[in-house]
């Protein structure tokens, strides 16, 4: 009798497992799974949709064109976060249970929440040019990657560009630089660096926080800007905050060529909303814009023209779409490197970490993958998970973004010691922070 009960229990367990199995993504032997945490709904969808399209399209194009990476298909699945930290953590847990190779939070708030989990769960976190700047320190954060640049690099790049306009760093003394930002983890991230630089170079930093609920109601912040008369305005905006800020700046007649956004404030729709008044608005960038790249053309032929992509054909090649493509390039290249390093074709998330830590996308490789000139050559290693790579300034001409500078390096000499100190501080305030146990495979 007892045996019967055990058999019945085992049968029930087997049955429930059988029922549970189909909920996992269908994966063949020669496939790997990547979850993309995206947001196609909510107040940040304007920025989230093009990035999500770009990421999914590049990976799906590799599946269509090459059968994946070295014959291993990439099973892509999106998880909607709505840019909400709690939902993002739920997506992370789901990604973990489904065996994702890597987690892309696409939100600094979510990144900060999953950083302590990543080393425990052994899932690498790829926060491409966002998240915790100090995570560039590979010895402290072996499971977190933020190439090609950190927010602190971005802040230093903007200050460098302003200094260039003024004729040298010494001319920053006495200047007033306004900083308008989304009052969240994302917008607050570069403040320590900007304050440090204000101290070092003698400029005044005036802060204008924009609460999340007031993104489309920035009249007060811009009235303050009008009264304070800063020489330059720097912006860390996202979602609906960007087009509103551009419109408000134009409204108070702020000189737009002195208004410089971070790379996440440079969507076409962000600037387009300002109409004629937005002409001259600048942002940083680290990826190419447009469709004049063979890989983007492949996406067009294989996905867009065949109705397999969600992107509006007119928006193919726009800045944030291409940003998503670049994010997917980093993932695909990391898979390839991990396959080489481990000798396996179907890799695990632990192998993926090795891949992300050994990226080396040089000009020759960019040409091979059909993206010559799309980004500056990029590499990572065990100590350096960002690389502090080159960026450029783009300017809105009323209809499209134009390159307004050559590629230039951030002020790495300034930023790196500060990042090291910030990593130490993170370790102390999150003690006991685990020492790096992962061997270096460089």
């Amino acid at each position, binding site marked *: 009798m007892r045996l019967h009960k055990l058999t019945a229990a085992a049968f029930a367990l087997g049955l429930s497992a059988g029922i549970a199995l189909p909920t996992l993504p269908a994966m063949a032997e020669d496939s790997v799974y990547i979850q993309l945490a995206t947001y196609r709904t909510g107040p940040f969808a304007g920025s989230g*949709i093009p990035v999500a399209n770009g990421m999914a399209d590049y990976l799906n194009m590799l599946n269509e064109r090459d059968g994946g990476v070295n014959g291993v298909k990439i099973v892509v699945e999106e998880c909607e976060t709505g840019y909400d930290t709690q939902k993002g953590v739920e997506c992370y847990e789901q990604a973990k249970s489904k065996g994702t190779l890597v987690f892309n939070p696409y939100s600094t708030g979510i990144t900060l929440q999953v950083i302590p989990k990543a080393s425990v769960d052994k899932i690498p976190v790829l926060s491409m040019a966002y998240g915790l700047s100090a995570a560039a320190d590979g010895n402290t954060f072996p499971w977190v990657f933020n190439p090609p640049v950190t927010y602190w690099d971005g802040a230093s790049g903007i200050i460098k560009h302003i200094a260039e306009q003024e004729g040298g760093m010494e001319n920053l003394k006495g200047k007033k630089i306004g900083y308008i930002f989304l009052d969240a983890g994302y917008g607050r991230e570069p403040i320590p660096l900007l304050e440090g630089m204000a101290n070092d170079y003698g400029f005044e930093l005036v802060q204008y926080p924009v609460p999340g609920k007031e993104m489309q109601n920035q009249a007060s912040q811009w009235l303050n800007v009008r009264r304070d008369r800063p020489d330059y305005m720097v912006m860390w905006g996202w979602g*609906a905050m960007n087009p*509103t800020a551009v419109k408000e700046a134009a409204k108070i007649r702020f000189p737009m060529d002195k208004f410089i956004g971070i790379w996440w404030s440079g969507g076409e729709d962000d600037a387009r909303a300002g*109409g004629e008044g937005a002409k001259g608005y600048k942002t940083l960038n680290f990826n190419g814009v447009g469709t004049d790249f063979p890989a983007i053309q492949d996406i067009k032929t294989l996905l867009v023209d065949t109705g397999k992509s969600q992107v509006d054909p007119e928006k193919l090649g726009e800045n944030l779409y291409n940003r998503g493509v670049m994010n997917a390039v980093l993932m695909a290249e990391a898979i390839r490197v991990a396959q080489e390093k481990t000798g396996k074709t179907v890799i695990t998330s632990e192998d993926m970490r090795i891949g992300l830590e050994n990226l080396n996308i040089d000009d020759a490789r960019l040409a091979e993958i059909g993206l010559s000139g799309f980004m500056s050559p990029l590499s990572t290693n065990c100590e350096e998970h960002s690389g502090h790579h080159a960026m450029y300034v783009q300017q809105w001409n009323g209809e499209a973004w134009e390159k307004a500078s050559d590629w230039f390096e951030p002020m790495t000499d300034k930023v790196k010691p500060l990042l090291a100190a910030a990593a130490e501080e993170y370790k102390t305030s999150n003690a006991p922070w685990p020492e790096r146990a992962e061997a270096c495979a460089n």
Partner: protein
Amino acid sequence: MDFLYSILIDPFVQMVELPDFLLQVLWEGFVAGVLYALIALGFVLIFKASGVFNFAQGIMVVFAGLTLVGLHEKGVPAYLALILTIGVMGLLALAVERFVMRPLVNQPDIILLMSTIGLTYFLIGFGEFIFGGEPKQMITEELGLPTGSTAFEIGDGGLLILQHIDVAAAVIAIIMVGMLAIFFNKTRIGRALRAVADDHQAALSVGISLNQIWAIVWFAAGIVALTTGIMWGARSDVSFALEIIALKALPVLILGGFTSIPGAIVGGLIIGIGEKIGEIYWGPLVGGGIESWLAYMIALIFLLFRPQGLFGERIIERV
């Protein structure tokens, strides 16, 4: 002493030193107040006639704006799109009355509130399903609304910049309030609405149809939502972020009273101007960003003296 000076004296010195800037702040506050009042009006209309706090008013603003722009994107001329959107808001009102309100007649207020929360989530999902989540640009010029700005020189090099769209918003809001006042006071349906607001049962006993009245107020709230959507959309864009803006109406309602149209207008203006003055002249003392809670502070201070709101009805219940 310095601290007291910075709170009690310095802001007023700034106001006197830069009168053009003060005028600009007052103007921006006035425009914001008009827009808050428009949102609050939508709430008041429905609360007045049915006692329901319509949590869905914010998403109705987004839905109306998206329908207008969405239809235009599909090739419908702007004015036809406007008429069709009014039609869509009418259909929405009928559907809400038939499928949400009618089955819940005589249910406690909290049930009706919950049903409007459900309606909010339905409209978010339905809106995203039909129009997608991407923000859209308002068809300001196509609708014949003015764009651009005019600058007035004031005093010694001072400047007051008026955006034409803001002037239009103020004028349209005033016309809309005037029309609503005439509708409520001079028409038969308006009088019926007021009768329902005063006493449901008494209104029913003299032959007024509750269902018809509810459909009419939801339609009127839909028209107000469409106007608000056009005006806010022209200032930034039409996106689901606008839904949060509707929360700005809450302190306006607390201040003006939930049942008073003049209350919504005066409350909107007090909150709009008050929060701008507060943020600009006192905000920097605490690092800025005080606007979002200052509105509630202003409302609470008024409530200390008038618990029923500025124009709200005093409810005296005998026990």
